[in-house]
């Protein structure tokens, strides 16, 4: 089995790429990356393993933070929350957890499994359940493909642990976890039922941490070489540049815990005269121009700073920012009939069917695994 043992520059690259894959949501990976790097300096290891290298009967736990990013940057992590989730799950099921995996590579949750895995000295699977960020627990390829909705564990910084022994559906699990999170002060960590290595190898979006690393690497290399980071992102991801321009209008409102809104980006230079409108529900959902819808969920609509390639979160969007909008094709696992029922345009209340942008491809494992 090949492992990729991360160093501090790898963490920075993955954090930058995870921000881009967050498609406007998912929270900022910065604080998590600081914790991960501090653990490396203490002598701990963070090892990644490819999903295809997992033993078929390995027990893999998906671990995530849940709650409001605005709270998470203020009442920051204690550090052992994820560990508490893993221990409680092991106690409840009577089986050891062999590896951790992220539910969503987009945003802060790319870092969450790494922190607990470093403390447990177990590997993190180079894969996730979304290939991006989505607002709800049940929107993973795991649940799309029949992952069971219990048991699940929710834990906070203080030592409170809630075990959901039964939830009648993934949607119900989501509601129970949200309610628990509010009681815990609006930030917590959760793990869903352990999955087998065989299930993860088949249904997780493979090499998504490698993809984040390669996006981060390409942006940093472009900046260092005075090249265009946006062009580098497009080249590295097989995506398409939709528009370069400036944010000319931001409408936002909060309803039912979601930031809903619409962003207008007016083209500049080569794109002068064109306008993109992007619908937001925590993440960027749908992008259209005068000709109609260009890109929709589950494909990724990534908005980055036009000059630096820095990802720009939904809450940070404001009038006058100079941005580039890039579309990345979602992995094939998110484009199946079953997946579209959970993460396609109709699942977000639109009355049109999914039309893909570009061709799905599989991210390659990072060079860190060796030849």
């Amino acid at each position, binding site marked *: 089995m090949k492992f990729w043992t991360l160093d501090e520059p790898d963490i920075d690259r993955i954090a930058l790429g995870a921000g881009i894959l967050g498609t406007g*949501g998912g929270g900022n990976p910065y*604080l998590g990356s*600081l*914790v991960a790097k*501090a653990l490396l300096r203490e002598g701990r290891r963070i090892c990644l393993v490819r999903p295809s290298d997992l033993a078929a009967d390995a027990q893999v736990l998906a671990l995530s933070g*849940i*709650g*409001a*990013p*605005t*709270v998470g*940057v*203020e*009442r*920051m*992590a*204690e*550090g052992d929350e994820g560990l508490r989730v893993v221990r409680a799950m092991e106690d409840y099921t009577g089986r050891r957890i062999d590896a951790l995996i992220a539910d969503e590579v987009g945003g802060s949750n790319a870092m969450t499994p790494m*922190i607990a895995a470093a403390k447990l000295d177990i590997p993190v699977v180079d894969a996730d359940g979304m290939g991006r960020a989505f*607002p709800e627990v049940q929107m993973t390829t795991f649940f799309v493909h029949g992952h069971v909705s219990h048991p699940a564990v929710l834990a906070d*910084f*203080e*030592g409170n642990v809630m075990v959901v022994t039964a939830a009648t559906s993934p949607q119900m699990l989501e509601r129970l976890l*949200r309610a628990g*999170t*509010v009681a815990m*002060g*609006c930030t917590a960590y959760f793990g869903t039922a352990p999955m087998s290595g065989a299930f993860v190898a088949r249904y997780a979006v493979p090499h998504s941490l490698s993809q984040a690393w390669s996006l981060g690497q390409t942006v940093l290399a472009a900046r260092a070489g005075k090249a265009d980071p946006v062009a580098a992102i497009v080249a590295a991801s097989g995506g398409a540049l939709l528009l370069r321009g*400036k944010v*000319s209008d931001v409408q*936002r*409102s*909060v309803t*039912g*815990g*979601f*930031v809903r809104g619409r962003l207008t980006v*007016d083209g*500049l*230079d080569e794109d002068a005269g064109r306008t993109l409108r992007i619908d937001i529900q*925590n993440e960027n959902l749908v992008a259209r121009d005068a000709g109609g819808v260009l890109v929709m969920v589950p494909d990724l609509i990534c908005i980055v700073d036009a000059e630096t390639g820095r990802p*720009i979160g*939904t*809450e*940070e969007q*404001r*009038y*006058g*920012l*100079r941005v580039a909008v890039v579309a990345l094709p979602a992995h094939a696992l998110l484009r199946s009939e079953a997946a579209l029922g959970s993460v396609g345009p109709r699942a977000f209340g639109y009355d049109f069917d999914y039309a893909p942008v570009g061709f799905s491809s599989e991210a390659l494992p990072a060079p860190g695994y060796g030849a």
Partner: protein
Amino acid sequence: MTGMVRVGVDVGGTNTDAALLRGSEVLATVKVATSADVAGGIAAAIRAVLAAARMAPRRVDGVMIGTTHLLNAVVERRDLSRVGSLRLCGRATRALPPMIDWPDDLRRRIDGGSSLVGGGLNYDGSPIASLDRTGIRAACRDWRARGIEAVAICSVFAMVDARMEIEAAAIVAEELPGAAISLSHRIGRNGLLRRENATILNASLMHIGRQMVGAFRAAFDGLGLGCPFYLTQNDGTLMSTDFAARFPVLTIASGPTNSMRGAAFLSGLSDAAVIDIGGTTTDIGMLVAGFPRSRGEGAVIGGVTTNFRLPDVHSFGLGGGSVVRTDGALRIGPDSVGYRIRDEALCFGGQTLTATDIAVAAGIAAVGDPALVRQLDDALVGAATSRMRVAVAAVLDRMKPSADPIPVVLVGGGSVLVGERLAGASQIVRPEHFGSANAIGAAVAQVSGECERVVSLEGGTRGAAIEASVAEAKRRAVDAGAVEASITLAEIEETPLSYLPGNVVRIAAKVVGDLAA
């Protein structure tokens, strides 16, 4: 401020500018070289500007100073105090100890040891843990034993309720009499690590800040002024010297803000683009409601990420001294003859073709000797003139809030390059005295008050929550010396807390008003 006589001083790295105003009339401006003795340099500038207008020192109602002195202290890592960091957090936040993202050299210099103790709040104001008074006293004894004289106190969600920080400060003051104590709820915004960073920087600057204020007082004593003096803050508003001694970090980035505020005052425009073309670079910023538009991300000061906002200014390499090359493709800048323009540019008898020579040859600028550039090829002059206009217009278009043309305040020694028309500009204003806009911006600075809260809208209305925040911000502005009747709302920010049921929002209000005479 009708009829008030004010002196504004802006201390930059190279020059110290001073301006004397009566009401809104600029009576005199001077520019002197900045001296190593900052207070002495300021006194000399004030003396010179008063002499220029034959104004008696006794008649001055206020002196307003903007200085980068403390920014330089951070950047050059000098005269900084070691700081004990006290975080009120209970078990929360411990994965990210204080100063975790500081540059190593600065951390080694400032870190006096941190203590994470029981205390802190949840977003709804409930305590994470009760305040650990014993733990605070123990930390203080440790700091006292090691000679630490500055303490930064930061509570989780201090902006929801500041009482825990205030109580902790009282305990620290008992244990460490005379210590410089800095509280996070008066320094920064939501986002614990950045607010704490700024609070620690503030504590480390309090000693040198007190020295600076003391030196200013001493220097002013010899001037015969009978008036109070103020320092300008990062947001372009004023603080008293007592306040500055307690919140020195709030002075460190006031320079660019003062220039933009000066441009607003001199042009009489509150919503406009300010294009400042110097010898080497062009800086374009936006005035919105009389204040500079700020950048989204927090300012990085001496390598430390804070949550201060700085003006959003776009700079590029075009200035009066930009070198024009005609071998091969036409190129203008980014290198410049800079301050040597009066020796090197063709129109001044030099040997280098500069952007200014092009403007003189095109007949849009009247400097130097036009005869010296008469030999330039008309096609070259035409192409270069249009290239410069297009470059400025392109950046202006990126900065503008909409496609509609907007008023432009055009300033700086290199502003002759642009002529009287510019794509995207509805009008071009070239105010007088612009060379001293930074000092004038300091002189006309107002007083502000800010208030930030996290509130649940369940069982209350959004309107009432905003009103309460604005009222608190007004109260703070009046405390800081504003005339109540003059106070207006400058900024309101409303950020929903996403991914959760229930309408919880963060509301930040900022008001400004005129300084009471």
